[in-house]
């Protein structure tokens, strides 16, 4: 177990220390976080916070931010972390300053690509497809009903969209994360 405050890495101490800037997006909120080499304080959106970090085990971390306790399991996923907080998870997209500069140079459009397909959130059986190709749907409209765990679960649209392609049919078994419907 490692305690960032108690045991700074001597090797890192010898090396040059550069404060790094991370841009974190959680839901619709954006944070700019400056981490210096010591990681005992960070600056979040301009405010300085004393941080004491302890890795409890594997991916489970305890954070004391200005002495207030939080506990998270951080699971790395594309572009950031899924951050589990005890009863669910947040997704945090993280870009460091360097990468962002690089991205700008490469002409990439940056963050915020929209979900372009509906994927199965769990394995199950397709009971009903409620839309047709070409149909305009609005947020909340039912798209597909999947039976899993003895319950019928309606998958709904998270945003307005047009149906481009339907990749499943009623009666078909689907895997978790399988693409069901492609939007335009």
């Amino acid at each position: 177990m490692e305690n960032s405050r108690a045991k700074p890495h001597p090797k890192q101490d010898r090396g040059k220390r550069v404060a790094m800037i991370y841009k974190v997006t959680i839901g619709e909120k954006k944070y700019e976080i400056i981490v210096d080499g010591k990681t005992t304080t960070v600056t979040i959106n301009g405010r300085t916070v004393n941080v004491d970090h302890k890795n409890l085990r594997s991916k489970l971390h305890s954070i004391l931010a200005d002495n207030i306790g939080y506990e998270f399991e951080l699971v790395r996923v594309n572009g950031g972390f899924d951050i589990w907080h005890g009863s669910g998870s947040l997704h945090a997209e993280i870009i460091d300053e360097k990468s962002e500069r690089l991205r700008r140079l490469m002409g990439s459009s940056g963050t915020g690509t929209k979900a372009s397909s509906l994927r199965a959130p769990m394995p199950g059986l397709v009971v009903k497809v409620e839309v047709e190709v070409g149909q305009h749907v609005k947020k909340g409209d039912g798209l597909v009903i999947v039976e899993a765990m003895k319950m019928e679960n309606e998958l709904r649209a998270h945003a307005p969209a047009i149906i481009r392609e339907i990749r499943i049919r009623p009666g078909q078994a689907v895997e978790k994360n399988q693409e069901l419907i492609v939007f335009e």
Partner: protein
Amino acid sequence: MFTKILIANRGEIAVRIIRACRDLGIRSVAVFSEPDRGALHVRLADEAYPIGPAASSESYLVIEKIIEAARKSGAEAIHPGYGFLAENAAFAQACVDSGIVFIGPPPSAIRMMGDKMAARTVMKAAGVPIVPGTENPIDDDIGAIKIAAWIGYPILIKAAAGGGGKGMRIVHDQSEIKSAVRGAKSEAKSAFGDDRIYIEKYLAKPRHIEIQVIADSHGNCVYLGERECSIQRRHQKVIEEAPSPLVNPSMRKKMGQAAVAAARAAGYVNAGTVEFLADDHRNFYFLEVNTRLQVEHPVTELVTGIDLAIEQIKIAAGEKLSFSQGDIKITGHAIECRIYAEDPSSGFLPSTGILSVYHEPAGPGIRVDSGVYEGAEISVYYDPMISKLLTFGKDRLQATARMLRALEEYRISGVTTNIDFHKTILRHPEFIAGRLSTHFIDMYYKPSDEFPENLAEAAAIAGALMEHQAQNKLSLSAAKRSRVSQWKTAGRNLIQNRTAEKGWR
């Protein structure tokens, strides 16, 4: 008394019954499907027998496999838990036929109560108030229209063989009745192989209140107070409590006596639950009888001090009830929150995964009945219930405060749960005031993706720190790699030079 009992179930209820067996000094026998080899009920039982693959239809629902495991192990009795074969009269009969005691009511009582219309008829005859409606099956929409006109809209069309909301239709006026009858009949036919339907008055904002009864085989039958289970989503209970904030002593006595009359009329033995709908004026109407231990039985255990699973076993062994109606006292208040792997913000969609972090709350006033542990999987094969979190307090306020504390302490990663949903409900002014109904969630719960600002900030900081650590490690190992490769390059040059010296000089 038995020396060995087989538990024909899995998950928390199997664990619950193993614990009752331990308390009685009886050996417990678990059965398990392939993915359940490492499940908690297998870990805790004295013995365990495999019964086939993951699908319940090929394992937990196969009567012959269960009976065979009981024979092999030498178990004298089988406890069915709830779900699976618990209310299957054929299974109870198969036990009897094999000379194994079925821990539950006689097959005849299961059969009678399984037919919702027959149950209504029995109850009415016993003087139990029933929801106004038909006593005979409805054949077509013409009959339905006639009856609906008599009891008044809205009405509910229900399947006689039914349960679980299947073959059920709410009808608000005559124009809807034709398609509702057709729809209900065809759904009932495909779900139960029986297209009989009947009509009940549809109560607006009813409360779900049920009475626990227990009867021995010597003619003694008592009621153990009520449970209120009005907080439901998808027609499934999620929060239950005892006593009900609505029920006063005189209502309790009336409901209890009606429930005991119902049980006696059905020739009932063992633990059972008589479910009622109630309105805020304390009128109540018979709904159905559950011929098994309910999921929510622990709230009754907490307020009465009676261990229902133990009583079930004793009754099955032919013992007399050790208490009479006068001995039953309701003390304090108990609440149960069912912790499900599901996402309340997307219509309570089940969630699957590995419980990578799993830390249960504990301490004063807490009881956790679970069938999982850290590292266990919530799979698509079985019910997504993770545990039943129960609290007990001197009153409803303390039980609620302790529940909020326990929900706060619970740590689960790997699957999304309804823990925050429970917190929201428990803090709602209408819940606190005890003004409940089965429409509570529809009326008052607004799913939200919001999270407290300080939590999001702390999560952002944690994410940035981890990213920072990862980048430092990357650059450290990159530095190492480049150092190593310089050495390698140097070495190679050396060799090449030597070769050159030797070869091309």
